[in-house]
């Protein structure tokens, strides 16, 4: 298992799932791919299907509509894989903690095993890169 994980950290393929988010986190993630930050230098690639991904990047709160889908997505991800919670919404729901979707809306870690949290509303692209680097360092030992 650990060899597999070590191999995984050499080139992370990321699938980005936007649940009920406000887009900002999503735009910052997309921003990572564009010339100023260009994470493809590090082998990080945004892929179009969860079945090709090593990392599930989740943004936004989980409302009634999203929760079952997030679980389904995670089940489809090839294991071992990582889950990264981007933004305050996913980590602790931030200012949305008291919506009437609250019975169902939970922080992501109640639903999936989260490997890394990247706080911020939205986190800066530098912060996202930092988070991924820390994750890679921790897992790649």
């Amino acid at each position, binding site marked *: 298992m650990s060899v597999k994980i070590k191999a995984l950290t050499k080139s992370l393929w990321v*699938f*980005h*799932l*936007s*649940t*009920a*988010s*406000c*887009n*900002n*986190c*999503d*735009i*910052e*993630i*997309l*921003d990572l791919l*564009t*010339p*100023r930050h260009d994470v493809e230098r590090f082998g990080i690639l*945004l*892929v*179009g*299907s969860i079945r090709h991904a090593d990392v599930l990047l989740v943004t*936004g*709160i989980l*409302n009634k*509509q*999203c929760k079952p*889908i997030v679980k389904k*997505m995670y089940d489809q991800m090839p294991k071992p894989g990582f889950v990264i919670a981007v933004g305050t919404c996913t980590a602790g729901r931030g*200012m*949305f903690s*008291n*919506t*009437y*979707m609250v019975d169902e809306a939970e922080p992501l870690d109640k639903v999936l095993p989260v490997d890394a949290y990247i706080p911020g*509303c*939205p986190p*800066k692209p530098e912060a996202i890169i930092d988070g991924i680097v820390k994750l890679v360092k921790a897992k790649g030992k």
Partner: protein
Amino acid sequence: MSHKVTIPIGPYHPLQEEPEFYKLVVDGERVVDIDVRIGWNHRGIEKLSESKSFDQSAYLVERICGICSTSHPIAFVNAVEDIDEMEVPERALYIRTITGELERLHSHMLWLGLAGHFLGYNTVFMWAWRYREPILDVLEAISGNRNNYAMMKPGGVRRDIDNSEIPYYKKVINDELLPAVEMFKGAVLDDPVLAARLKGVGVLKHEDAVDYSVLGPTARASGYDIDVRRDEPYAAYDRVDWKVILQYEGDVFAKAVIRILEMFESIKILNQCFDKLPAGPIDCKPKHISPGDGIGHHEAPRGEVIHIVRSDGTNRPVRHKVRAPTFMNFPSFKKTVVGETISDATIILAAIDPCYCCTERLTAIDHKKNNIVCGAERLIHLSQHKTWDLGKSMGFSDSELTKKMGRKIE
């Protein structure tokens, strides 16, 4: 015999933005019907706002949409100020205009990039997003955050602009951004392939634009002359000189033209605001909001956003209603997409600049056999391929097209 196939688009998509769900019904290559289901992103913001004070609600509405993250607060504070007819300090009005226009610039850049991507012009995507960064730098210098600026509050703005930094802002806008926008104007509008690809595609006629009450660039591209910045000025829009851009064709090309030319107007507005920025306080510090109703609006990059706030004299709104522009622009798909081909559907859906990367998760399903015939990447590929073929038929060589589009499309 016709054989209709339904293509569900969304609701979850890998690229970005909110989940939305479209259902395209196609017959062969022609789209015959479209249906939209919204509500995937429901977070109960209107209700939540009733539990927050007026100052807190300004933060909340900022999080309705990340790209319009200053449009909603501007509309909201306009609504709250409308209740009491507050006298907002001049400097605050100018700062509002500055943030509003910077946001329009970055939003239009973002649209341009993604539209380029859908057509196979990945170079445009990368360049547009590269030149979006200086705008975000300016916003960060002004507000402290790249997105979600937290600048607005009822009665004024939260942060002042440091006068000594204005030369830097102007330098970024005039020396970095302006040449970039000029470049895009040349690269996009004078490109024969793009013109052939986009002209006459997804036409929204003037009557239809009026019937469907579309807003923003979608309306202005059909010759429907509305812009609330001019029609009912707020902030400092009546104190600066600018003009509303109009096009009459109503096709995707016209929408691109509108957005590119609007960027020039935004730069014009910004320069004037920075020059004229009056001294004085930035906040009139309202002590309380009297009972009553207020309506506020703002011309967001996608069209007019309206907020209606009712106060009962306490520190919270008792009712807060939000109407976002995409809500009005959605139904116009019935007129624009129906009758076009699948390869054009992606760019037409993107043309109103909805929360649009839904199109990234297009999957065609054969209704009867229920098997997937056409995935997301396939549909974008179809769109990019059409551009390539068109270029070839116009006499461009492989190498010229590869240079234009950034890569070869097989």
